[in-house]
């Protein structure tokens, strides 16, 4: 028997949604860690029973939770994310220097091969690694001390390291608003890989860093091909980030937050266009996922089962995921508390849950029971 598990992090706790392979009926458990912000929950590809969750509030700071039984029970593990070297400075919104200061973990990326190895992306931007299931964390200082770091700005949500793509020893990390960075040596040294990104509003639109990258995804079978939803613009790179080209094509707007890649079709992409950077809701109040089957450029709206009037929610950068079943599932959560899913690659959609708190992140797991 196959089970599909959706991990939804929200502003008021974490939720675990489960279904069989038909993905028609869903059971919702939670809130786990009620009252806390759960920026991200993710399962280990090496052991799907092993889950990690980032739990935070402004009052009590950062907690990392770990489950060894698929989210039934949880235990807090290590939460010491102290910088390993002098914090250094970045730029504040008004261009004044400001010391790096740890605030929260935005994203947890478990290793594909070892359930005890996890990478964590922080705000202010820094990358951490654990090799003991979260008991202790070590900062990989090469990223925070990159030569461009003193020129990084926070995005509207903070200066967050929100995307971690593991192709060990190669690692990609993306930071808002700094850009995309690549390490070829397991995170020790980093290069900015932002050539071709354009960014209105910064003095040099071709700058090495300073780009507001919202999310980056890759298909496992094509490790050199990256897809990016930037602040504005949907982009792709076919040379591991060395150069980027725009693939926004016929999208109604190319502003948005998440981007996803079909699990079996490496040229099939999903985005959720949002009106603009000042209007964080879908154009015309119509919630539409756009799918490209051509690697970008040509996009089709997917609307069946999604609200097509009076919908003014957003879909945040980590709130879209795909499962790996033969008929692929696609999922996303909204700032209005809905989690929508499609069991047919996006052709039709239905709500898995309607009234959760604001959804910050969505991840999918397929489990053989």
């Amino acid at each position: 028997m196959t089970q599909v598990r959706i991990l939804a992090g929200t502003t008021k706790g974490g939720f675990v949604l489960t279904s069989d392979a038909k993905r028609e009926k869903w059971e919702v458990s939670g809130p786990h860690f009620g009252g806390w912000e759960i920026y991200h929950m993710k399962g280990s590809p090496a052991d799907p029973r092993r889950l990690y969750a980032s739990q935070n509030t402004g009052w009590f700071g950062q907690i990392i939770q770990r489950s060894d039984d698929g989210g039934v029970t949880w235990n807090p593990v290590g939460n010491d994310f102290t910088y390993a070297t002098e914090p250094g400075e970045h730029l504040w919104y008004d261009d004044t220097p400001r010391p790096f200061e740890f605030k929260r973990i935005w994203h947890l990326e478990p290793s594909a091969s070892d359930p005890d190895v996890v990478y964590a992306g922080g705000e202010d931007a820094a990358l951490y690694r654990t090799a003991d299931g979260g008991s202790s964390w070590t900062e990989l200082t090469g990223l925070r001390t990159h030569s461009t770091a003193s020129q990084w700005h926070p995005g509207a949500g903070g200066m967050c390291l929100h995307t971690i793509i593991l192709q060990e020893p190669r690692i990609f990390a993306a930071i808002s608003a700094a850009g995309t960075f690549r390490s070829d040596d397991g995170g020790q040294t980093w290069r900015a890989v932002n050539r071709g990104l354009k960014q209105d509003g910064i003095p040099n639109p071709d700058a090495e860093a300073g780009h507001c990258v919202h999310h980056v995804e890759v298909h496992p079978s094509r490790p050199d091909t990256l897809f990016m939803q930037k602040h504005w613009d949907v982009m792709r790179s076919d040379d591991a980030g060395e150069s980027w080209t725009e693939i926004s094509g016929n999208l109604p707007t190319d502003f948005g937050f998440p981007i996803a890649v079909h699990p079996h079709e490496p040229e099939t992409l999903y985005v959720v266009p949002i009106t603009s950077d000042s209007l964080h809701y879908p154009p015309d109040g119509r919630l539409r996922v756009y799918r490209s089957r051509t690697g970008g450029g040509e996009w089709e709206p997917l609307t069946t089962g999604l609200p097509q009037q009076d919908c003014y929610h957003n879909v945040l950068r980590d709130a879209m995921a795909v499962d790996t079943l033969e008929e692929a599932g696609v999922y996303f959560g909204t700032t209005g508390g809905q989690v929508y899913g499609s069991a047919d690659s996006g052709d039709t959609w239905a709500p898995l849950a309607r009234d959760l708190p604001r959804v910050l992140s969505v991840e999918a797991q397929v489990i053989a029971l």
Partner: protein
Amino acid sequence: MLPAHLKTLARVHGEVGVQVTGNLTQRAVLDALESAYPVLLGTIRDRGTGKRRAFIRFYACEEDLSNDEPDAPLPGKVAARIAAGDEPFMVVGAMAGG
């Protein structure tokens, strides 16, 4: 006494008792608390600086001790009543929001 979220995190109910050796100071109380409940490390005091988190306050005997020096002995009457178990040292999550 802990805020509700920290009680949940530490899996305790009601007031928490800790043994303090030496002078009864803010730091001694919090060190003893974190020693007994390591999961509270970083939730009351910042992991890096050791300073009280911005939205945490300390009270005892209706006195606000939040800005007292961490290594200063607690005021005499307060210390006596806490040591006797008559009054709790209160860790409070500051009220904020709308």
